[in-house]
């Protein structure tokens, strides 16, 4: 029943997307009965949302009911898994995540159509059609190679449950939806670009304003998703790190870089009417990179070129990427005359220049990560060798770019548009430079040896000061002009120009996160020891004493844990319980580290191994300063994006 309903909904959705995404735009373009075709395209958006909601709802229902006659449920479900993890395994494996992707896309499409329902012109109708055309691709996957609703016969009594790594932590309920909201959200700017080209509104500044807000929304979700993913990896993988330049991580980061570049360069277009063509490229590029990222993470090509050729879904993605690229090239080339920007750079010393440098660096950064991610595939396909590109490559290539970007984040706000003045710049930058010198001295004094670490801390000090000064100077001006209290003046300053100050708040989030990353990687210390109950180990200034080793059975897993007490002056001030979770479907235990967080840093503890009679356990203790700053910084970045993107009348 459930299965038939869902499969029908998917097929109907496919037809609706084909009508709204391919036939309707042709009808709109020919001009006969244009209004009717517009209504068809927009109605299709709503219809598709209903149909895909039925399909996704049916899947959740089937998961919750343990309906193992449905292939996806048989693949990821199990009666022992808690209901919460059972339902969220909707996005735990390939087919379900494609279904979820299609649902998020339909949700965004409804948002686009509904929020712009009163907007005249053909931009939104064409954009809706473009979104439906993208949805059509995902529907083809869903009725074809990624169909989650195959009939399983005979019906198994129980299933293996989700991948243990995906049911071991609550962040699995948070990170994937955020990631999809960010990733899929980048389809909207792309659809607007298509709409702008087809409707001829490409030379009209208005479509860029619309596009900017949607990009900012998706960017905020993507930023939150990347930080949540780092957090998940930190809490679950047990090595005490949060970023490993893993291809899956890179796939989420690459489009973030181009989207970030766009959010900056679009300002240059609005202010100075430059970079029209470049911005269109960034919008299209970001979308293509999200599809490429999905292809990389979902086709199995990352583990091996051979794993990829065993499935068919990879070819569908390659074909889709090829279609989008050819279409985008035609779009850009066909409009390059219209897109030639009338604006020109007035002076080398101006805010525009800083934005141009920022875009150059972010683009270089993007290509570096992209090439590093793709290189192993090329090497295996062409030379037949298996290689991996690890941290040394990324550190060497990207650290200079990162510190340069941090520095520019301090220079940009200090420079005016059009034409700056060297004396003004020097005067404005002086406090920042003083702070930078002080920070550098302190950091070297504390024992930082890496040049990049010192530069990172010192540039964060510089740029942080410069951004804070923007708030202080602006608020002070209001205090003297309107006689407001400083706090009131600050809030009204932000409310009065939320785009600008929201941006500075997001910068502050980057600085807080960068401080956490630099501190935790520079001043990390760790120790490992095999302890008998009652014995202690010392790492840095922390003394950890093993109390006991214990085990317990839970419904879906068995748990072995160690209770370790942190001792100072003979008194216990904290107790940690690093564990190993044994899932019946996994040969390997899933490490479940325990973390004690304070604003100054984390004590990270992992159970490495244990004696089966409980007589001893090997414990790893890692001290990582300022790690919580990374998560906090993520929150501030999202806050900044919200301040910047929230519709005007609600706050003012």
């Amino acid at each position, binding site marked *: 029943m459930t299965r038939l309903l869902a499969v029908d909904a998917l097929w109907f959705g496919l037809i609706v997307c084909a009508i709204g995404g391919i036939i309707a735009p042709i009808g709109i373009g020919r001009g006969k009965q244009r209004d009717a075709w517009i209504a068809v395209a927009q109605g299709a958006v709503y219809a598709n949302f209903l149909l895909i909601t039925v399909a996704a709802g049916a899947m959740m229902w089937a998961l919750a009911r343990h309906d193992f006659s449905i292939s996806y449920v048989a693949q990821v479900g199990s009666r022992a898994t808690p209901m919460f993890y059972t339902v969220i395994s909707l996005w735990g494996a390939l087919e379900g995540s494609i279904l979820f992707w299609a649902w998020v896309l339909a949700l965004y499409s409804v948002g686009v159509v509904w929020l712009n329902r009163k907007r005249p012109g053909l931009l939104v109708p064409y954009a809706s059609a473009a979104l439906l055309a993208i949805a059509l691709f995902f529907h083809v996957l869903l009725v074809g190679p990624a169909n989650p609703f195959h009939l399983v016969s005979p019906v198994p009594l129980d299933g293996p449950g989700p991948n243990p790594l995906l049911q071991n932590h609550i962040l699995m309920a948070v990170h994937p939806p955020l990631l999809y909201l960010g990733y899929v959200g980048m389809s909207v700017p792309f659809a607007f670009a298509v709409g702008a080209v087809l409707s001829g509104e490409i030379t009209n500044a208005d479509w860029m304003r619309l596009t900017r807000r949607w990009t900012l929304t998706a960017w905020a979700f993507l930023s939150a998703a990347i930080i949540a993913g780092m957090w998940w990896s930190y809490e679950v993988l047990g090595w005490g790190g949060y970023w490993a330049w893993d291809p899956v991580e890179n796939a989420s980061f690459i489009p973030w870089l181009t989207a970030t570049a766009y959010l900056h360069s679009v300002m240059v277009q609005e202010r100075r009417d430059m970079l029209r063509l470049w911005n269109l490229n960034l919008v299209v590029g970001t979308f293509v990179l999200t599809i490429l990222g999905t292809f990389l993470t979902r086709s199995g090509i990352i583990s091996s070129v051979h794993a990829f050729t065993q499935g068919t879904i990879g070819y569908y993605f390659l074909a889709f990427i090829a279609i989008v690229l050819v279409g985008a090239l035609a779009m850009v080339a066909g409009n390059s005359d219209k897109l030639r920007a*009338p604006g020109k750079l007035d002076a080398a010393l101006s805010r525009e220049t800083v934005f141009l440098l920022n875009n150059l660096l972010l683009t270089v950064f993007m290509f570096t990560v992209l090439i590093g991610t793709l*290189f192993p595939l090329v090497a295996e396909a062409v030379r037949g060798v298996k290689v*991996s590109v*690890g941290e040394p490559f990324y550190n060497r290539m990207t650290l200079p770019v990162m510190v340069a970007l941090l520095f520019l984040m301090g220079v940009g706000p200090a420079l005016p548009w059009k034409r700056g003045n060297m004396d003004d710049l020097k005067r404005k930058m002086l406090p920042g430079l003083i702070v930078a010198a002080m920070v550098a001295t302190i950091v070297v004094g504390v024992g930082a040896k890496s040049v990049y670490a010192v530069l990172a801390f010192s540039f964060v000090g510089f740029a942080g000061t410069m951004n804070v000064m923007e708030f202080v100077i602006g608020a002070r001006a209001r205090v003297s002009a309107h006689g407001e209290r400083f706090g009131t003046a600050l809030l009204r300053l932000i409310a009065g120009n939320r785009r600008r100050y929201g941006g500075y708040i997001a910068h502050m989030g980057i600085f807080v996160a960068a401080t956490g990353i630099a501190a935790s990687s520079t001043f990390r210390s760790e120790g490992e020891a095999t302890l008998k109950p009652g014995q202690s180990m010392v790492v840095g200034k922390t003394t950890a004493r093993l109390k006991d080793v214990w085990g317990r059975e839970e419904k879906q897993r068995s748990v072995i844990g160690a209770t370790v007490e942190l001792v100072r002056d003979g008194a216990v001030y904290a107790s940690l319980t690093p564990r190993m979770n044994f899932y019946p*479907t996994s040969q390997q*235990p899933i490490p479940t580290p325990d973390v004690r967080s304070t604003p100054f840093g984390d004590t990270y503890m992992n159970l490495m191994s244990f004696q089966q009679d409980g007589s001893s356990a090997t414990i790893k203790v890692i001290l990582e300063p300022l790690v919580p700053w990374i998560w906090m910084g993520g929150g501030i970045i999202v806050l900044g994006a919200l301040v910047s993107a929230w519709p005007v009348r609600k706050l003012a």
Partner: protein
Amino acid sequence: MTPPETGAPRKRSLVLPITAVVVLVGAFGWLIWGGLDKNVVFFLTPNELLAKGTGGMNVPVRLGGQVKPGTVKWDDKTLDLRFDVVDTNGTGMIHVKSKGAPPQMFRDGMGVVVEGRFGADSLFQSSQLMVKHSNEYRAPKAGEKPQEMYKSLMKGSGQ
């Protein structure tokens, strides 16, 4: 429907921008290539590593193979772990030295990936030890059931 572009497109010389792009792309490519050349880590089996001779020494390598049964030596005082890795057919032995406790399920004959460097002293210094596992479900063989490993710990457990 939209206002026409103000000002006709200007003809500009393309020589300078194209040269700039070529120079930038070239410099960038050269940098990347250099970075990749020095920092790529090869996946090798013991036989492949031995076949490289001195060329395989003192460069970062990911060595994938099997733990040769009966060779695991673990000292829980010094945290020294030593074992031999062989190809899946049992040939091509490499001595591995590692620091830190072995993974809980580490045992004879299992698949491992060891990241590190093969020294001129014919000892592979491991910086990271990973147990090979897949997400695919496979029924546990006798003696592999986790329950059998920690049964004794389940008694009288509190927490």
